[in-house]
């Protein structure tokens, strides 16, 4: 996978790179364990990608740490280390954003486009705790920005078409850079019909339509001070979710931020970045297009977040440190209105998220110590205060049906601590880490009210009395690299206490028509999760390169029962040919049969599969215009399959031909 670049240095921002010429970085830089998926650089999407106009979901799932839960063609839910949204942290340039859908139909990755982003940084476990509390790890999606290099205009146009689902993609980016000013704008539009599976059957309600526009502008009002504003507006309409009983008529986000960056001259402080941000999400579910629903209902949700962070990076002899103070305020509301068949009857209304306000403040500190030119020790810690309040009196009264003595607010303290040692000499590297972290229950886990989960067919009730979930984690990495080939194995083990899950409450009657019962969120004594992945790469010759990935996951609760969404053995292998302006790749991707599944959580045995993909690209210049053409076939043999993480076993796409075009001038 050519889009995996392992950075071996501190977190560089593009900004720092642009300053790098003036201020050389220390000779000894400690290692930081993270994985970076390159998505785009400046106006151009990453042309080494098999399909440059792939969705952000398709980019992310290339990581061995990431799996995707798929409920349709659109808005897949990323899992890190086989842990879902509640246990992970996804940020956009360090900004916290919270989904507005009670049914997880809008992971925050669905509110950005590949054209907005330059890369995704994936960190495992507590290493990802810089921007908030997490158990499984973090993904930070970094915005694309020109910076102050390469003066002048830079324009690109992208267009794409996919035969299966007839997806049409059109995008453009226009960037303008001056010595002390730059502005980047980009636009992308996608529209897809229903796709067909490997048996040639149309998967109904798998269509979507999405529109995204964004802009980033920076102004350097001194050689070392930059003010940068950024806006993303994203709107998806008519999004089908074939695996769910409802679709989405509107998913809309406005994501804004203002950043001030300061690079003190001749100081221990390398960089000081302060950002304030605001984002608002509106999400509306829709059942009006479904042929028969037992009762028509509206289920809108809203999520508004204000926040800031201030982050200092510095060097003190061999100590490379980061201090980050961050805080956010979020308001999550979701409601449900049901329309009785008898229109004279009053509407049935309730809050599914009872206007939950979250106020979070954390102080994070990291010290990366270069012990010598081969080894480094990283130590990081954070302490956060997490405050929840139920602001709707009606919502509070609803929850008091289950918890009569419930208070309207709850305060939690979330500590995190982690340490990592890494060693690197003559191509051989290894590292190990130990960490502990806690998280607060999510809004659904704490305050959800009759949230229907179509996977196990239960209505879920939140539990405000849940204790913090905490995780003790150990990780090991071993790698070996020569100029011809490289191998890297990493594994992590999580011992998670107070593991939050839903437990059936026999006496309760479900509200949703057809549901099997009611589950109340509760905590298991503990659960254990183990993940191991192997990344191999071999450069056979100047033109031929092979890559391989193997991932193994394991997850059990304290009674030795399987946890849900634990990946079976999965693999990926690709052979890449690149000569001059021509590239071609053939790749196979597959899973073994899922034997460790969990019927308790609605899972069944998923058969193994393997699909073969092929793509080929050619770049050429036409006067000043640079062009890149990519064509490819996914699932060449039209295999009918679904994976362990396909919600309700909806089948994946059958054979698909795509064409991606990029023009840059």
């Amino acid at each position, binding site marked *: 996978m050519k889009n995996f670049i392992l950075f071996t240095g501190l977190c560089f921002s593009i900004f720092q790179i642009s300053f790098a010429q003036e201020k050389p970085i220390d000779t000894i830089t400690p290692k930081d364990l993270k994985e970076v998926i390159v998505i785009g650089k400046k106006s151009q999407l990453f042309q080494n990608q098999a399909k440059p106009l792939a969705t952000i979901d398709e980019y992310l799932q290339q990581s061995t740490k990431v799996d995707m839960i798929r409920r349709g063609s659109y808005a897949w839910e990323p899992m890190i280390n086989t842990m879902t949204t509640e246990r992970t942290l996804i940020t956009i340039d360090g900004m916290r954003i919270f989904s507005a859908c009670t049914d997880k139909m809008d992971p925050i990755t669905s509110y950005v486009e590949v054209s907005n982003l330059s890369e995704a940084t994936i960190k495992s476990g507590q290493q990802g705790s810089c921007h908030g509390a997490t158990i499984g790890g973090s993904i930070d999606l970094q915005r694309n920005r020109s910076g102050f290099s390469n003066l002048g205009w830079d324009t690109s146009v992208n267009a794409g078409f996919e035969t299966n689902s007839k997806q049409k993609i059109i995008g453009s980016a226009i960037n303008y850079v001056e010595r002390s000013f730059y502005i980047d704008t980009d636009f992308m539009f996608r529209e897809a019909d229903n796709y067909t599976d490997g048996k040639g059957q149309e998967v109904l309600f798998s269509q979507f339509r999405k529109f995204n526009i964004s802009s980033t502008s920076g102004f350097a009002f001194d050689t070392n001070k930059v003010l940068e504003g950024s806006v993303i507006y994203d709107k998806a309409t008519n999004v089908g979710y074939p695996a769910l009983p409802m679709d989405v008529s509107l998913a809309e986000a406005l994501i804004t931020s203002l950043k001030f960056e300061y690079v003190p001259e001749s100081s221990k402080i390398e960089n000081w970045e302060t950002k304030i941000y605001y984002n608002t999400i509106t999400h509306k579910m829709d059942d009006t297009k479904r042929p028969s629903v037992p009762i028509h209902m509206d289920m809108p949700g809203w999520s508004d977040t204000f926040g800031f962070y201030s982050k200092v990076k510095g060097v003190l002899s061999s100590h490379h440190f980061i201090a980050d103070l961050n805080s956010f305020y979020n308001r999550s509301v979701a409601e449900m209105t049901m329309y009785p068949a008898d229109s004279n009857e*009053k*509407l049935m209304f309730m809050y599914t998220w009872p206007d939950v306000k979250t106020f979070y403040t954390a102080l994070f500190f990291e010290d990366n110590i270069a012990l010598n030119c081969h080894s480094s020790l990283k130590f990081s810690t954070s302490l956060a205060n997490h405050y929840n309040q139920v602001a709707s009196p*009606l919502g509070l*009264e609803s929850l008091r*049906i289950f918890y009569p003595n419930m208070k309207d607010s709850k305060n939690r303290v979330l500590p995190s601590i982690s340490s990592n040692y890494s060693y690197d000499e003559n191509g051989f590297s290894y590292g190990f880490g130990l960490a502990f972290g806690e998280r607060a229950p999510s809004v659904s886990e704490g305050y959800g009210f*009759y949230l229907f989960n179509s996977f196990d067919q239960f209505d879920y009730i939140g539990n405000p009395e849940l204790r913090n979930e905490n995780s003790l984690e150990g990780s090991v990495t071993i790698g070996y690299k020569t100029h011809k080939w490289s191998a890297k194995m990493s594994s992590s083990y999580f011992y998670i206490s107070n593991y939050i899950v839903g437990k059936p409450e026999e006496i309760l009657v479900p509200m949703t028509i*057809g549901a099997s019962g009611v589950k109340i969120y509760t905590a298991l004594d503990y659960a254990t999760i183990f993940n191991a992945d192997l990344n191999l790469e071999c450069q056979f010759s100047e033109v031929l390169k092979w890559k391989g990935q193997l991932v193994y996951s394991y997850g059990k609760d304290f009674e030795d029962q399987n946890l849900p969404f634990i990946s079976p053995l999965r693999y990926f292998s690709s052979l890449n040919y690149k000569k001059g302006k021509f590239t071609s790749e053939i790749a196979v991707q597959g899973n073994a049969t899922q034997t460790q599944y969990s019927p308790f959580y609605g899972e069944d045995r998923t058969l193994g599969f393997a699909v073969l993909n092929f793509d080929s690209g050619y770049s050429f210049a036409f006067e000043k215009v640079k062009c890149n053409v990519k064509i490819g076939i996914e699932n060449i043999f039209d295999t009918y399959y679904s994976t362990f993480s396909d919600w309700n076993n909806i089948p994946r796409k059958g054979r698909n031909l795509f064409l991606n075009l990029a023009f840059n001038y």
Partner: protein
Amino acid sequence: MKFLRILLLVIVTIFASCTSNNDVPALNELNGLTKVKEITNTTHTIELYKHMGSLEQGFNEISLKIKDNTTNQYINNATISWMPVMHMAMMTHSCPKSPVTKLSVDGSVYEGYIVFQMAQNTTEYWDLKIDYTIGGKAYTMTSVIDVPASAKQRVTTFTGSDSVRYIVAYADPHHPKVGINEMVVGVWKMQDMMNFPVVDNYKLKIDPRMPSMGNHSSPNNVDLTQIVAGDLYNGKLSLTMTGYWKINLQLLNATGTVLKGEAITDAVSASSIYFEIEF
């Protein structure tokens, strides 16, 4: 500035002293009530009041005041009893009712409840006879009253498996809310046509359901029981959302035998006795 502050203080003081001089208790006693009927004889006028609108089929909490027609003063030393009677084609009968008691020592408002188990129609009607004594002298007055049918079922009359005829009526909450509601219900039996005493030590099981939404139920309801013999029954009604709820009932006697009503199962979607609320 200082002058303004003093002025403000003076105004507040005057205002406060004015209100305290008024006849506050009498006003408060009728707070939230509307006058539904005036009945007059030669000596007195009786004003009937009710919370939320007019009398209707079901449980009615009624307040009343007696005014002396000559002095226009309200009487505060009366002893009152009442007798509602339904005039049907072939017979007459009464209904469950409470004694009439004075609300407060100083006030002049009297109150009690009447449970109209059936509504009037074109040929059948209710009248109310009020007997009262003031200073040892007895008076009476009778008037036809309007008792239309209630929009939702608030009272049910049935014969139990013990062959006794019962009346069960919904009293509270007047304004149901999403959440846990304190619920009050009355249970009476028909001793004869004119006497309907409270039944003691029974239990009224409730199972609120939403027929329009898959007939789902709500959790943590508390069945209604009596705290003091002779009183109404108290329990907890939980409502998870707004809309139309059917409260399915089962009446159990002191030994726990079901006298009437069915438990809700997949096959039985509603009990033969129930109340309805919609909000």
